[in-house]
């Protein structure tokens, strides 16, 4: 049986002059998921999103949305998609409601839909103000309202928290988290995993146009081991001692050693060995690398290749 992928790309490729922006990208976005499309700036995220929306033509590969090829029926497919690409596309000389009315006239929706989306993004009271007087956060919310206009099944959001202050990011995050409950699949890009970590159910990491990881956040976490953070009175000697005994101890910049371990028993063993050798252990703690750490490590490794 065919998987109900909302988005599926096969060997998607696009170059600009000599630069290959997207290189054989094969994405699979499950229905009902919040898919975090992550990668550093310039990794090819926006180019990919623009190709998904038919704004840029791919050099090669295939794009399928709702199990239909985009190029076979772009109008039919795009009717079911809402998007917010980079900054919101708004007319500042119009009010918030008029901006949505422009969309309504173009797509033929109902007037009640304008009120519905304004309510969802909590902009009802500011609907009749000119957009030029909106704060950045309000504009972003109106952009999201525009993306949600017409009750799309799939939302494609490119860096939706870009430029927002912490309160704005929190507000936007809460909004997006509510969307899957309304039956929406969300595909959102970001260059910061920490910004989307709490929202996503699936992750795709892209670097230099290539997909380097795709799966659930837990699968990403499972790729790395716990680590012990050790601080002693003689860091250099402690590091030598642990390395001699087969530990991959690394001396970080923060006056401590980082040692990958398999569990608490390893942490206790490291402590015993150091104390037996006469080292004074000031600190010993075990931690699991955050998703952000794993993401940074993955993208750095890929860059070195």
């Amino acid at each position: 049986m065919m998987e109900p992928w909302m988005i599926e790309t096969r060997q998607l490729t696009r170059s600009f002059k000599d630069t290959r922006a997207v290189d054989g990208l094969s994405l699979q976005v499950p229905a009902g998921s919040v898919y975090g499309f992550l990668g550093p700036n310039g990794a090819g995220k926006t180019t990919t999103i623009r190709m998904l929306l038919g704004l840029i033509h791919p050099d090669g590969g295939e794009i399928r949305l709702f199990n239909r090829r985009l190029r076979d029926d772009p109008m039919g497919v795009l009717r079911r998609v809402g998007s917010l690409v980079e900054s919101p596309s708004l007319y500042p000389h119009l009010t918030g409601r008029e901006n949505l009315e422009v969309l309504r006239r173009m797509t033929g929706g109902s007037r009640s839909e304008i009120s519905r989306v304004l309510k969802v993004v909590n902009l009802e009271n500011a609907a009749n103000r000119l957009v030029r007087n909106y704060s950045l956060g309000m504009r972003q919310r109106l952009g999201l309202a525009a993306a949600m206009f017409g009750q799309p099944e799939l939302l494609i959001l490119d860096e939706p928290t870009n430029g927002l202050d912490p309160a704005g990011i929190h507000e936007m995050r809460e909004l997006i988290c509510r969307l899957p409950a309304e039956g929406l699949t969300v595909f959102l890009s970001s260059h910061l995993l920490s910004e989307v970590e709490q929202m996503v159910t699936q992750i795709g990491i892209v670097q230099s146009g290539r997909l380097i990881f795709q799966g659930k956040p837990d699968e990403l976490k499972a790729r790395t081991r716990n680590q012990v953070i050790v601080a002693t009175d003689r860091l250099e000697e402690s590091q030598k001692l642990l390395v001699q005994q087969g530990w991959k101890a690394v001396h970080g910049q923060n006056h401590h050693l980082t040692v990958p371990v398999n569990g608490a028993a390893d942490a206790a063993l490291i402590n015993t060995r150091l104390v037996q050798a006469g080292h004074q252990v000031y600190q010993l703690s075990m931690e699991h690398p955050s998703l952000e750490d794993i993401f940074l490590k993955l993208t750095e490794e890929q860059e070195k290749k």
Partner: protein
Amino acid sequence: MKHLFRALSAETLKLNRTLALALVFLTPFALAFLEVAIGFEYGRRMYRVGGDAWMTLISHTAMMWNLLLLPLFVTLEMGLLGALEHNNSTWKQLFALPLPRWSIYAAKQLLAMGLIGLSMLALAAMTIGAGLIGRVCLPELGFDAPIPFGMLLQNMLLSYLAAWLIISIHLWVSLRWSSFVLAMSVGIVPTVISAVTFGSDWSPFNPWALPGEVSNGLFEMQPYLGALLLGLLGGVVVACLGCWESSRRDVLH
């Protein structure tokens, strides 16, 4: 066609509170105001005793409009229409909507032609207004004669049709490239050249001189059909090319 009407309806809403809409009435008003001022200052020299004051006013207005103001107005108006989308980075949203791209472009084309047509209708009305002011305030100039509505409207209609080519050229340039400076340059330079070289052998082939050529031909009883057809059909062809090109291009901004 459903898509086209939808897009056109949205385009008209976007004009709310814009300079582009205000200029549709301000530009002809400026010219009509100038004509009234000229009437008061130089009326006795310009309007000959026993001459046809209305025809003098209409032909003078038509020449000022068609040779200079109209090409510059079209340049500015199309530049403003393009800036409406470029400045707000709205192409990425417009072209991701479930509407054929050609319908969005064609709606802009129709809107542009509508705005220029409206400004010329306004100019016709304001020209009559200027003449009526002359009839009341400067009775010696001869504006008490019947108003030649037919000639006035015929001139406006024909020069409007001849302007389709520059409307289409400027709209395409303004929508295709985000540079407002480029859009202005493409209009100002040829307008100055066409004003200086008006009446030369190749003037009837210069898109920016076509409205003036047609209007002049009408008043001077000289052939103008070639210039009219070039402006009209050329405008349609460039508009179609614009629709085609907009459907193919990548939206990178």
